[in-house]
């Protein structure tokens, strides 16, 4: 995990509280919001990438093998990937407490 920018005293703030580290929202683990997680059955997966392109949270990333990696750190569990998968290869399962 990247170093979280501590909110410091005003003298240390960048001019206009500009954020100079691009994309540091990766520090925020929005996966905590999730109550269900998608599970992909690779036997059914045809590597079409619908899960990847339709994910609002940029959770899937293409692998060399053609499959897609799922990142538990950011998945909010909306279930779009499961709903849109043309082969019903993705199922939503409850997160265990």
């Amino acid at each position, binding site marked *: 995990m990247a170093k979280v920018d501590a*909110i410091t*005293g*005003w003298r240390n*703030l*960048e*001019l*206009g*509280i*500009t*954020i*100079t580290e*691009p994309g540091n929202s990766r520090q925020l683990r929005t996966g905590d919001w999730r109550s269900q997680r998608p599970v992909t059955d690779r036997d059914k997966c045809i590597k079409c990438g619908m899960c990847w392109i339709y994910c609002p949270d940029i959770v899937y990333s293409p692998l060399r093998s053609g499959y897609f990696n799922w990142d538990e750190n950011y998945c909010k569990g909306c279930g779009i990937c499961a709903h849109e998968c043309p082969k019903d290869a993705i199922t939503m399962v409850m997160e265990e407490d």
Partner: protein
Amino acid sequence: MPKRVGIEVSLAASEAACVADTDVVAAYPITPQTHIVEHLAELVADGKLDAEFVPVESEHSAMSVCVGSSAAGARTFTATSAQGLALMHEILFIAPALRTPIVMAVTNRALSGPISIWNDHSDIMAERDVGWIQTFAENGQEVFDLIIHAFRVAEDPQVMLPIMVNLDGFTLSHVIEPIEMLSASEVRKYLKPYKPRIVLDPKNPVTMGPVGMPEVYTEAKQQIEAALTDSKKVVVKAWEEFAKLYGRRYKPVETYRTKGAKIVLMTMGSVSETAMTAVDKMRDEGVPVGLLRFRLWRPFPLEEFKRAVKGVKVLAVMDRAISYGSRQGGPVFTEVRSALYGTPKAPQIFGFVAGLGGRDITVGTYEEMVDKAMRYAKKKKGPTYELIGVRER
């Protein structure tokens, strides 16, 4: 030697932005600012000023374009007045918050209603607390000089704040005066090209204007407050350097015949020249009166002001705007009195609201103020403030 030419003050303001090599001008026409933007449009059309002229559809957009332009690294100029300044209000707060060093000429005019195109300070006084440096010009030469000075100060790495240069609408903006016009090459000695530290650039992506949660909002505000307060040093130093290069000297608080004065008049803007005439006349008549003007209004020149009124017995403060319901007349009076609170041997202070919406301010107006203030002081009793010349029936 810079040449001295007879020129309308509005045009001189545009010429100042031109010799400062402004990159972007975004403005919307409003009386009495129009001649400034018209002339800037001409300068761009004739190729004398290499800038983008953005003829926006409102002042709100004018200021928004300026913020975008300045954030993208361009030297940015605009001008407005009254209703236009009020329409910018929302964005005026954001320009200093994003540390965009925009320079804006404000041709001071009365705010509606009733609608009035004539001069007073109600427009600028409604924008006291927006976080901009604010200077006031008394004559055409000052308008030209203060605009050059404004770019230098605004873009100083220690400052990085926007500046409003105030000039009275019509009574100053539309008069023709002899002005020493500095050339672009002369100005280059004083004003280096703008080098922003933070800029919108795909090579180095930054996020400007993020959401300020309660954990950081106070600190963000303090950053601006400190920058604005500390900017006074840079303002003064830049004036000192201006004097070295061009011979004209400016100070945050200007005094006129205050030596030995028991009573001091306080004014701002172009009416100060009439006030000087009034002071001369009253001095000739044996009244121990002097004059004090704020050239710098934000940041408030507290130390300079306190020094200037040391030993003064009575202060007659003229406001050109009303703070409705404050029961203290105008904002200048409120601030001046507050600045002196707790000062040992502070003068007695009386407020006078005058010259609203183009009502004439004559030598007689000043005589009336001084006369009244002296009388009230002698009795140790008088109204906190009054409207000069208001007809009761």
